[in-house]
């Protein structure tokens, strides 16, 4: 049987999270706003208006280019892509064609047991178009999205499976948030991905005719769309049919792909350099000022967490899933100074639960990394027991007070006084002759029940290990 492999390239559009649009002062993010409320003469294409480039767009593009190992161009410029559509009020889109902001680049994508080297073709800046819809018996146009800044980033056809497509998008989304260049929410269209899919006999290097999958708005859906398309292509080829260059539209409701239009002739957009905008000149000083606080990137940090802190891959993945969480870990680790894996457990279980419940990012917690370290140290020193330690997390988060202060004020310190524990234990033994009998007749597991009683009586402050020792002695 012939074995096939998929050859997939992704064309991604990334909506930047700038405050204003790319060529005017209108608010960039119109999510939830009524139609045509974030518009002005410039972005609605009134006669006589001119675009003025928002520098923040260039800066975010440079951050992303650097993160993708792309070559940032000292001079890039904007072109006009001419076509008619009602959502394009100028009749042309301002984009970069001949000389984009960055060329080349790659991402080394960690997969189960191997790394996929995904090359980037180029990154360019452009403006988004508006939206049209049908309503009240006519075509309606909403210009809110006109002029929202986008970066188009195109990969080479280097992905080999639907899983790799999903992994790439997850890593890209993580990176975009990490760099604070985009909210990267596919459901809201902040991150859009079209997939070019073809297949070939495994081992071949040729590129066969491809189809393009459009209009998918989640990573999971794109994974299934690509998977379905690969299966369809294999079936067609095995049946002796040829693959045609279709554009395929994804229907989320039915989870199916359907043919949009055949792509035999390329439209001529008559690109030419936009005379209304100056060359984007990124001199060394500007570039340096953009990159001055360039962060360690998630994949590099993940590697370092594994090698430096000897964390399992799983922990490293989770702790670097989001920048503020990984910063939190590092700060807490510095303050803690003991076993990083023990800290990682606390973070992944208890701190992340708190984050989820409160819908916060790690940097917003009142439980600072230092407070967390303090709590774990108190548990380690038996000053408080584990469950008190965990409840301290919430108390600190609520009050903003230091864990030590709370322990003092509320008298939460663990009772390690053998005398006090012995007193409680003796009373419990005296009050429960039945269970004493059962224990003595061999039901050892009841020791847990006795310890529990002591803990309850002491309102959780007793050192459970000490309680167990005392009880075992009394019950002999």
């Amino acid at each position: 049987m012939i074995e096939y492999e998929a050859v997939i390239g992704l064309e991604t559009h990334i909506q930047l999270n700038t405050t204003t649009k790319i060529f005017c002062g209108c608010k960039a993010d119109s999510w939830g706003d009524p139609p045509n409320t974030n518009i002005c003469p410039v972005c609605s294409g009134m006669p006589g208006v001119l675009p003025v480039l928002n520098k923040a767009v260039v800066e975010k593009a440079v951050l992303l280019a650097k993160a993708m190992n792309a070559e940032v161009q000292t001079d890039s410029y904007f072109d006009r892509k001419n076509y008619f559509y009602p959502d394009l009020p100028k009749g042309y889109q301002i984009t970069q064609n001949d000389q984009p902001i960055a060329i080349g680049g790659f991402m080394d994508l960690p997969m189960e047991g191997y790394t996929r080297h995904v090359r980037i073709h180029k990154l360019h800046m452009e403006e988004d178009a508006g939206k049209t819809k049908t309503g009240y018996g006519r075509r309606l146009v909403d210009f809110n999205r006109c002029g929202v800044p986008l970066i188009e980033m195109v990969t080479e056809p280097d992905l080999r499976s639907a899983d790799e497509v999903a992994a790439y998008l997850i890593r890209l989304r993580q990176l975009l948030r990490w760099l604070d260049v985009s909210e990267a929410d596919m459901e809201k269209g902040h991150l859009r991905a079209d997939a070019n899919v073809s297949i070939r006999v495994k081992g071949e290097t040729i590129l066969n005719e491809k189809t393009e999958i459009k209009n998918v708005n989640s990573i999971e859906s794109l994974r299934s769309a690509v998977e379905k398309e690969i299966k369809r292509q294999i079936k067609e080829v095995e049946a002796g049919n040829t693959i045609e260059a279709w554009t395929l539209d994804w229907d989320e409701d039915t989870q199916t792909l359907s043919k949009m239009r055949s792509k035999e002739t390329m439209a001529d957009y008559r690109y030419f350099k936009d005379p209304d905008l100056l060359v984007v000149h990124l001199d060394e000083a500007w570039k340096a000022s953009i990159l001055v606080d360039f962060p360690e990137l998630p994949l590099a940090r993940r590697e370092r967490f594994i090698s430096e802190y000897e964390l399992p891959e799983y922990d490293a993945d989770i702790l670097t899933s989001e920048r503020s969480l990984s910063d939190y870990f590092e700060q807490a680790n510095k303050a803690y100074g003991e076993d990083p894996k023990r800290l990682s457990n606390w973070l992944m279980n208890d701190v992340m639960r708190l984050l989820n419940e409160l819908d916060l990012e790690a940097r917003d917690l009142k439980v600072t990394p230092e407070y967390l370290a303090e709590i774990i140290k108190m548990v380690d020193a038996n000053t408080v027991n584990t469950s008190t330690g965990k409840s301290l997390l919430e108390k600190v988060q609520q009050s903003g007070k230091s864990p030590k202060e709370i322990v003092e004020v509320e008298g939460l310190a663990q009772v390690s006084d053998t005398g006090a524990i012995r007193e409680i234990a003796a009373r419990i033994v005296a009050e429960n002759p039945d269970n004493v009998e059962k224990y003595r007749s061999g039901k050892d597991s009841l020791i847990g029940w006795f310890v529990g009683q002591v803990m309850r009586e002491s309102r959780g402050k007793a050192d459970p290990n000490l309680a167990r020792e005392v009880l075992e002695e009394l019950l002999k």
Partner: protein
Amino acid sequence: MELCDLSAFELAGLIRNREVSAVEALESALKRIEQVDGRSGSLEAGEITPEDEKKVHAFITRTEQIARAEAEVVDRKLAEGVIPGPLAGVPYTAKDIFNVRGTLSTAGSKILSNYEAPYTATPVARMQKAGAVILGKVNLDEFTHGSSSESSAYQPAPRNPWDPSTVPGGSSGGSTAAVAAGMGQLSLGTDTGGSIRQPSAFCGVVGLKPTYGRVSRYGLIAFGSSLDCPGPVARNVRDAAMMLNVIAGPDPSDSTAVTVPVPDYTAELEGGVKGMRIGLSPDFFKIQYFNHESGEMDEEPISAEIKQAVEQAADRLSEMGARIVENVPMPHTKYGIPTYFVISRVEVASNLHRFDGVKYGYRTPLAIEDLDEMYRRTRAEGFGAQPKLRILMGMYVSAAQYSAQYYQRALKVRSLIRGDFERAYDPDGEYRLDALLTPATPTPAFKFGDVYGDTVLMQYADQFTVTANHAGIPGLSMMGGLSKERLPLGIQLLGRDYDEAALLRIGRAFEVATQDAPWRKEKPQVLAGLA
């Protein structure tokens, strides 16, 4: 002498000293409009009557109400002792290619016939801030596409006040005709291939195309975006300098508006030309054009009267102390028009994309099947012949398979044209010019209908002006004499980047040198016999 016949400088002085009021100045201009302008341009003009043929028809939209309000503000401020702007109370007009909030801004086209601007163009806003009083929006070739103003969808088209049987030139023909006939001391025009300088020459007024980027294009409905320059039309050099002072300078709404500091253009005006080097080029004393049958460049002489006017101007300037440098080679001048045919068309085809019937302006009233048909019909009905021709050509030469052959090549020729000027002005070069003195046009104003319809021939009326647009340099045209037919003869000064001041100074020296010339005493025909 009527107030409307005073210069902007004189009138502004009288108003500032409260010898006359801004409202009186306005009344004078309105009276002149009543006397000479006839009916304004309209889409349903009907037949052009013999009476029409005697009038100027500079306007599309008169803005008397706005003007009164502006003039009253000026008078009130003066009464309160507030120091008004430098052009306070001076009536002016704006070419109807500028957006002026709350006014129809038609570009002379049916496709924008119902478009009321929601914002104001930067140069207009600066005129407002300087206290100037807007009389209205004046006629032009449709979307500025022409050199006679005949192609406006708004008829009757403007006529030349010196002889209403001739054209005022274009595309700023409404502007230059208005200024020449006393309907506003100033007008705001635009120059893409000569559209300020050529009609200024035809109408005997001063027209200045500033350096590209010197004046913001924000709010100017674009033709050739890399060539378009807003600029002043005035009755004398000082007025042009005053107006440039007001409109020049960087603009946060136009990234191509440069931040080079703006000098006071009136400061050095009387500095004279002693020691200045002014060049003459043989390449500006002949018309060179492409012969479609032979495939060769043919040559024709220019009007002998214009040649003589330029030579006499050189003599006058020489007498004033300028050094005249002859035989400056400008070998690429002959490619100016063909290059313009390509570059401006590519840009305009794209710039006119937005007129699609979707958002504003004209939309076909006919029943339509689909979006494509709506686009096709709207544009077929809304655009006149000139925009259509230019769109077609622009689409052709920017098509993927022809772009290298035409557009990319034209861009290369454009830099060769720029090279001619750089060599002529190079301070370490052979010529070291401060300015080049040339004819503004090959001929004086031509008769109505004579050239209209022949796009190629019409375009050669811009041969001497268009290279300045390619090069981005400033150019000033002004009257240098009168023909036997009593039509103005235009001379032109071309200068270095951002050195409008030099052109104004030379122009002023020429005015001084010719102040007693008999032709200076002559007035446009339409003003003869006015009470």
